[in-house]
Each structure stands twice: as structure tokens, then as C-alpha cells.
């Protein structure tokens, strides 16, 4: 009896800290958030004092009021994901196949930005893209940009910042899946009359698809909910849904709307991601 008891309990004991942590810091707040999302302010109460009235109209009102910011969030996140993929794929490909002994150094360089704070790096981008940085004067001198046009406070700056900030999340999964490809399958493709472009299209790209899916999800999901880039590099005209939620919580202190917006964002991302994974059909590749 005594010998068999610990045997059964060990897996549960190992799971317990994780489950407890998730329950206290994820499940409970989510339930709380769900309750808050259908509350309405108490008549005559202080700011932030709400009562449960099951006002599901909060969702409709919040969405209609902020549909522009919702749309912008998904457009910006999609653009940042596309740009990050375009930059990260050749980078990951070079690291996986062409870097030789520099492979580890290059991988460290990919994650090196994480050694400094996300916030600081975004503020640095404000400098880089600002009037005193080298980008704007150079473009103006080359007559590629009007003398009065700026980059900061535009959607260009926000998307650029997001692309930069999420690049490692795109690069690492891409690298991992490219690195797993047996170089002999690429040689076999050449041996079977496929030139370099056909080999990439028919062999390398399909085999790296799990990395493409993982990388785009790891970029798109946080990018859609991001508000730091829009807050630091953008203007009121580039506000994303994250900025709205942030200001509803901390400035306007309108908890029910903020909660309803959070849930709407979560649901929208969940639906998009599910559709995307279905379409990509990655389960066949595992």
C-alpha cells in the first residue's frame, strides 16, 4: 500500500504548482473579467463602481464605438506579420544553411535585443525615425520624401516598430523548422531535375511550413493586442484596440467597456487563428 500510493500521486503533485498558478492568475481573473464585462455603473456611485446587470449590450456598444481601432489593429498586425516574415525567412534560411561556424553567434544576435527592455528599444526607434535621426534627413536629401513629411506619428512608424519588435518571434521558429530539414532532401530535389527556385517552392518551403505557421502566430497574436508601439511611435490617428483598452482601464476607468473589448479581441484572434491553422493544414506535416 505504502509503496504504491506515492506512485499514483506523483504526476498530480508535479502538475499542482502549474495548475494552481494558472488557476489563481489566469482562470480567476478571466472569470472576474467576464463578470465585469456585463456590468453597468451604479447610478450616483463613484467612478469605477459598477453593478452586475448582465448588460450584454456593452459588447455591441463597445464594438461599434471602436470598430475603427479594431480594424486598424488587425491591419497593422497583418502588415507587421508579413514584413517580419519577409525579413525573417531569408535570415533564418541563411542561419540554418549557410552560416557554418557563425551559426551560434548569429542566433545569439537574433535574441540579443531581449537583453534590453522592450520599452527602451521602442523609444529608441522614435529617435531613429525622428527629425534628428539619420533616416528622415537621408530620405529627404534623396528626394524620396517631402521636406515637411515625417515618419513618427504615422502608421509607417507603428508598423515598422511592431515589425522590429516581433522579428525574433518570427525568426526563431522559422530557424528551428528550416534547421530540421535534411539537406539531402534538398540535394535529392536537385538530383531529380528541380532547379533552385523549384526546389525552394516544392521542397524547402513546404517543409518549413510548420515554422511559418508558428512564427506568424507568435507575431500576429501579440501584435494584434499591442499598444506600446502605437503609443510611443504613433498619434491619435494610429490608435489600436490595445490603446483603447488601456485608456478605458486606467484613464477613463470604464471597466465594463474595457473588459468587453478585451473579450471581443480575444474571440476575434481565436477565430482568425483557428481559420488560419485549418487553412495551413499543419497537422499533416508533423
Amino acid at each position, binding site marked *: 500500500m505504502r509503496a504504491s500510493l506515492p506512485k499514483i500521486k506523483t504526476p498530480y503533485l508535479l502538475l499542482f504548482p502549474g495548475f494552481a498558478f494558472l488557476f489563481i492568475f489566469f482562470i480567476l481573473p478571466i472569470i472576474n473579467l467576464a463578470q465585469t464585462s456585463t456590468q453597468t455603473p451604479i447610478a450616483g456611485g463613484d467612478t469605477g463602481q459598477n453593478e452586475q446587470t448582465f448588460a450584454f449590450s456593452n459588447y455591441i456598444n463597445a464594438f461599434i464605438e471602436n470598430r475603427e481601432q479594431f480594424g486598424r489593429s488587425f491591419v497593422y498586425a497583418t502588415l507587421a506579420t508579413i514584413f517580419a516574415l519577409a525579413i525573417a525567412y531569408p535570415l533564418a534560411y541563411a542561419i540554418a544553411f549557410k552560416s557554418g561556424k557563425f551559426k551560434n553567434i548569429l542566433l545569439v544576435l537574433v535574441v540579443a535585443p531581449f537583453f534590453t527592455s522592450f520599452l527602451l528599444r521602442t523609444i529608441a526607434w522614435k529617435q531613429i525615425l525622428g527629425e534628428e535621426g539619420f533616416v528622415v534627413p537621408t530620405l529627404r536629401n534623396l528626394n524620396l520624401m517631402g521636406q515637411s513629411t515625417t515618419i513618427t506619428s504615422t502608421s509607417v512608424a507603428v508598423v515598422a516598430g511592431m515589425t522590429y519588435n516581433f522579428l525574433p518571434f518570427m525568426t526563431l521558429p522559422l530557424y528551428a523548422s528550416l534547421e530540421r530539414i535534411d539537406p539531402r532532401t534538398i540535394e535529392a530535389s536537385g538530383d531529380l531535375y528541380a532547379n533552385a527556385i523549384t526546389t525552394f517552392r516544392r521542397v524547402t518551403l*513546404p*517543409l518549413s511550413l510548420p515554422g511559418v505557421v508558428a512564427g506568424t502566430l507568435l507575431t500576429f497574436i501579440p501584435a494584434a493586442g499591442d499598444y506600446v508601439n502605437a503609443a510611443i511611435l504613433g498619434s491619435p490617428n494610429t490608435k489600436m484596440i490595445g490603446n483603447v483598452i488601456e485608456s478605458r482601464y486606467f484613464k477613463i476607468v470604464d471597466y465594463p467597456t474595457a473588459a468587453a473589448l478585451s473579450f471581443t479581441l480575444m474571440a476575434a484572434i481565436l477565430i482568425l487563428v483557428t481559420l488560419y491553422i485549418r487553412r495551413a493544414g499543419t497537422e499533416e506535416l508533423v
Partner: protein
Amino acid sequence: MSVDPITARGDLRLTRITKSYGEFTAVNDLSLTIPKGSFFALLGPSGCGKTTTLRMVAGLEEPTVGSIHLGETDITTTRPYQRPINTVFQNYALFPHLTIFENIAFGLRRRGIKDVKERVDKVLTLVELPHLAQRKPTQLSGGQQQRIALARAIVNRPALLLLDEPLGALDLKLRRQMQIELKWIQREVGLTFVHVTHDQEEAMTMADTIAVMNEGKIEQMGTPAALYDDPETAFVANFLGQSNLIKGKIDGADGENLVIDLYGQKIAMPKSRSHAIDTSLYAGIRPEKFRITRTGSQVGGNTLTGGHIEDVSYIGVSTQYVVAMPWGQELMVFEQNDDGVPPFNKGEEVLISWEPNFTFGLRGDEDIEAGMEVNPQELEE
């Protein structure tokens, strides 16, 4: 006139090929002609340059010096996809994301061939796996993957089929079976097969001609029987089967034969089978060519006296003896158990005899350990 290399046919000719990686020379001034339609094996231990040679023929490496011709067409710098050459890779390198059908159809589709389905079905029947067309490679066993890799290559009817250690990943029983099948398929399709292996048994079973490679050079080339029967170097004598190499001196001639002095005992061997360059030589005798009889019995041919049985291993069809000779050397003797004579016992003094014609002579300055320390299980790279 420039000819599209993809249509080239004929003998494969390597002319003075050298491949160096920095200081290291993988292939050293190698020349070789492989006749159209033959089953040719490049045999050697890991790092002997056989795989590098194969990769240069496939176009995956470019020779540092030298040229490669297929028939009259120079293909030395032709890209792999422009050569009429297909490869069966060591670990098959099947495309994991494609079905078996699409794996085999890959080469046909790239060349825009029309009757893909018909051709794929035909080759799947040839390798006896038509029912697996819609599976993915990971759902197949090693032996099945091996056949699909072969089918994927031969469906293109290349001028030349390269096989890089094709059976290395299979277990012994399956390997034996595939050796016979490969040989049969080669005859069936009539293509030139160039087979790279470290396994001497595999090379001898399948190939018409074997080139034994060592340190980037060809040691000796010939039919399996010729290489086994009359090896020219200690490396070949030891790498292909086992050999007893006894140090001796040429002590004169007697008609077509040489008289050899082996530690004071005289033996005879044909002049034509000696590769010695002066009077010192190693007399080589394969273990199964020796006969053991009791001391004092009357036997013809060459004899060596004074041996004592050191070890006896009875293995059914034969008995393997280790015989210690007076000069301190131990000789291997394989005796067929076909005459009902009870095996000799440890410690018995015996007479060793053999036919003079079975003796081969190696240069006296050879390293008689060459080709022995190679572990045949070791895979290239």
C-alpha cells in the same frame, strides 16, 4: 555545337580527378571508366573518397582538377538538375511532405513528362509496392523506403544510377534480400548502376566490376573473383575477405613457378601471381585454401610443417582453426566439415598444405596490417 547534357548517354569517364578541401585531399588523381550497362561498385573504408567521387558524378561537388564525361559530353561543371543521373541517397532522402506517388513522380513532373501515372504505377509494380502509393514516407518501413528511393530514381530512366550505401540502414536479412533484388532490377531495367559501399560482401554479391578505393586512390579494379583470387596489395587482400600473409624470399625459378623460401621451408607459386618488385615478398593464401592433415601424411602441393593447433571454432558447415607456426605467426584455416574426419584438437601438431596456384605474392615492403583495422560496421560520415 552544344549538346543538352540531359540527353547524354554512354560510358562514364573520370579523367584525372582530384578533389581537395583545403589541406585535405579526398580524391587523388583518379581515372576511371565505367562501361554503359554495368553494375559497378566503389568499395572502400570510410574516408577513402568513394562518396566524394560519387557526389562529383552526381554534380553535388565539383572536382578541383580533372574532368567527367558521359559518352562524349563533358559534364564536369553541369548542375545536378541538368545531368541525366539520379541518386539513391544513403538515408533515402524521400520528401516527407509528399505521398509515395508524388515522391516518385517528382522527377517526371520537373521534366514535364506526360504519362506520369502510367510510369509511376509501372515502377511501383517493379518494386512490388503498388499498394503504398498514397502513403507518406514516414508510414513505411526501412526496406520499403529503400525500394521507393530506388523507384524514384529509376522511373526517370537515367543514363546512370548512383547508389550511396543504399542498404546501410537495413538489417542483415533484409540487406541480403535487397542485394539480390537490386541485381535483378539492374538487369531488368538495363541501366548503368554505380554503387558505393564499405561492405565487401555487398559489393561482391552485386557488382560486375569492383574498384577498391583507399586514401583517395583506386587500389585495384576487377571482377569480384579476380580481386579475391589475386589481390595486388595487402589492403585489397585484407579488405576483401581474410588473408594469411607470410613473409618470404624469392629463391629462384622453376619453369612457370617461383620458388619461395618461407622461414626455411620451400614452396612454389606461379610467376604471374607475384606482384613483388624485388626478391622480398609476402606469400598470401586465403584461409579456405589451406588443408590440415596429421603430421607425416602424404599430401601434394605446398606444405608447411611444425604448426600446432592453437584454437578450434566449430561453426557447423566449417571449422575455423588458428594454427601457430614455428616462426611465431598464427595462420587462419577454414576447413569444410564434409569428410566426416573428426576435427583436430587444440595442441595437436599438424601439416598445412595447399595448391601452389592459390598462392598470391605481394611486395615485401607492404604494410600487412593495411585494410585490417577497418571496422566494416562503420558508416561513412
